[in-house]
């Protein structure tokens, strides 16, 4: 009796589940039902709580400054685009373009560099690949604060201070370890049999990479690229330390707002929304890739 009580919810499923497994050998058919209405309620509540900061930021961006700082907070108001106009009037575009070029360029570079490196650490295992992997991940230990001074001096001497390319290079280095680690986890999942079959069929190395491996890890590459893009987009410390007027990015723009004009919540919220929006859209569009890509390298 005791085992049946605990397995009762599952016992009901097999009729359907088994039929599915036999006809369609596909995992997607699984249905997790909330076994308790509390689970669904908890999910709604958690989503509301964790989304509220973003929502509040979004709403505040459409308020007048006088409505943003009131006690009690204003919930009902006539939305205005004044804050957005003010931001666009303050030369937001160059910052935005700097952010785009630094993030995109570094992301492309990261993927180009990390994919072969991950290949060397997974499929074509070099000797001492564990040490190499640890070396890659260990470079993430270095606190940015610690290397900023030497980096600043070097950049100054080479003459690449306040330069988008320089910033993109720094972001590439910053994201490389994560990318190698992630892409490696996808490559590990490529079945040995598939590779052997391709080789037996006489696939050259180039064909093997292009026709066999790349299609299999494409979702993983997309997920990795997205994550690297977000990290580069949101990076603040290097941007504020290594750039001034020419190459400053959106997070630097945000801080500029705060220091020069005091705390204007409504305008700051509007600017923050504009900074976060491209990433939210990119993430939403690529959501399936992201989850699929991550799951590919996730569990064996």
């Amino acid at each position, binding site marked *: 009796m005791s*085992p049946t009580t*605990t397995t009762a919810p*599952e016992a009901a499923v097999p009729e359907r589940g088994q039929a599915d497994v036999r006809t369609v050998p596909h995992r997607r058919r*699984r249905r997790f039902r909330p076994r308790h209405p509390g*689970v*669904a309620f908890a999910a*709604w509540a*958690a989503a509301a709580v*964790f*989304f*509220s*900061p*973003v*929502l*509040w930021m979004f709403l*505040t961006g459409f308020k007048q400054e006088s409505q943003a700082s009131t006690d009690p907070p204003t919930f009902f108001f006539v939305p205005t685009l004044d804050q957005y106009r003010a931001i666009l009037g303050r030369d937001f575009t160059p910052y935005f373009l700097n952010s785009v070029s630094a993030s995109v360029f570094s992301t492309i570079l990261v993927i180009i560099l990390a994919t*072969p*490196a991950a*290949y*060397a650490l997974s499929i*074509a295992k070099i*000797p*001492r690949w564990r*040490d190499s992997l*640890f*070396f*890659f*991940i*260990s*470079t993430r*230990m270095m*606190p940015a*604060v*610690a*290397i900023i*001074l*030497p*980096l600043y001096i*070097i950049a100054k001497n080479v003459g690449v201070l306040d330069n988008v390319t320089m910033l993109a290079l720094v972001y*590439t*280095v910053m994201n*490389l*370890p994560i990318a*190698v680690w992630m892409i490696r986890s996808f490559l590990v999942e490529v079945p040995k049999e598939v590779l052997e079959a391709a080789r037996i069929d006489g696939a050259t190395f180039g064909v093997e990479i292009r026709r066999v491996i790349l299609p299999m890890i494409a979702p993983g590459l997309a997920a990795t690229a997205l994550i690297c893009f*977000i990290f580069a987009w*949101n990076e603040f410390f290097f941007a504020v330390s290594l750039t001034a007027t020419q190459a400053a990015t959106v*997070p630097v723009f*945000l801080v500029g707002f705060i220091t020069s004009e005091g705390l204007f919540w409504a305008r*700051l919220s509007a*600017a*923050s929304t504009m900074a*976060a929006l491209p*990433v939210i859209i990119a993430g*939403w569009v690529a*959501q399936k890739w992201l*989850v699929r890509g*991550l*799951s590919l390298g*996730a*569990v064996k």
Partner: protein
Amino acid sequence: MATRELTPAPARTAVPPARRTRRRGRDGRSAALYLAPAAVLLLGVLAYPIYQLVVISLYDYGQAEAAGNAPLVFLGLENYADLLRRTQFWVVLAKTLGFAAVCVVGSLAVGTALAVLASRVRAVPRMLLFLAALGAWATPAVAGSYVWLFLFDADFGLVNEVLAGLGFDGMAGHSWTFGTYSAFGLVAMEVIWCSFPFVMVTMYAGIKGIPDEVVEAASLDGASWPRIATAVILPMLRPLLLIATIQSIIWDFKVFTQIYVMTNGGGVAGRNLVLNVYAYQQAFAGQEYGQGAAIGVVMTLILLSVTALYVRSQRRSVELT
């Protein structure tokens, strides 16, 4: 540390023959070449600054020395000795460890809990959960910090208003940033909010990747849910937990932006300093670059050893294929 793998020569001899047959001849040699560009860039942009950092930490290096107006005085390990003698360093170190531990445990717990939740509900609430995660992830740390300050503002904040509305009258006008622990707690909540999405997405993918048959088989064998969770699901998720934990440790130990923005550079009299901000203050505000560099080196060593320990302990139980 490990630069030897860049030299491909001893590669072939080290490989056991059984493996070599599986691999094509040229792979062993060229594999190191695939690694080379990434490793060279990483070393190039990091090695010299790290070298510089260590060098600076051995000198009495202030504003005058940096500008070249004063001769460099070699101190040896004096900067480190001085640092270790300071009470403030140990206090900041303890606070950093405590703060990071709370953040790591918090984001792992929150992220995993939400992943489990997301895997067990219908499409709409699941989509909302992911939207919340995406929003938290996409918001730049600077913006996120200000939004949280705004939400928890003593007078204009939404949180105090809601709490007061729920009957906690004392919360109206309550200042969250006043007390040391309250301020740390607020920053920790923001940090957890920033970092839970990575854990959640990763763990959700892991949970989804577990084949039904495995869980079904376990439950047919009469395993209870807690037993399935601990004996079946958890071991399968362990490689992912490893990645999520290491990432969280690295992030949370190095929190800078949130502390800097939310406690206004470390709080009154440095009550809310963490090592990263402390190093920044020493180096830039105090213009004691040598001291700041020493803190940076110490921080790096701590992080390296923590991660090495963790990786080693995990290696025993999980084969990192």
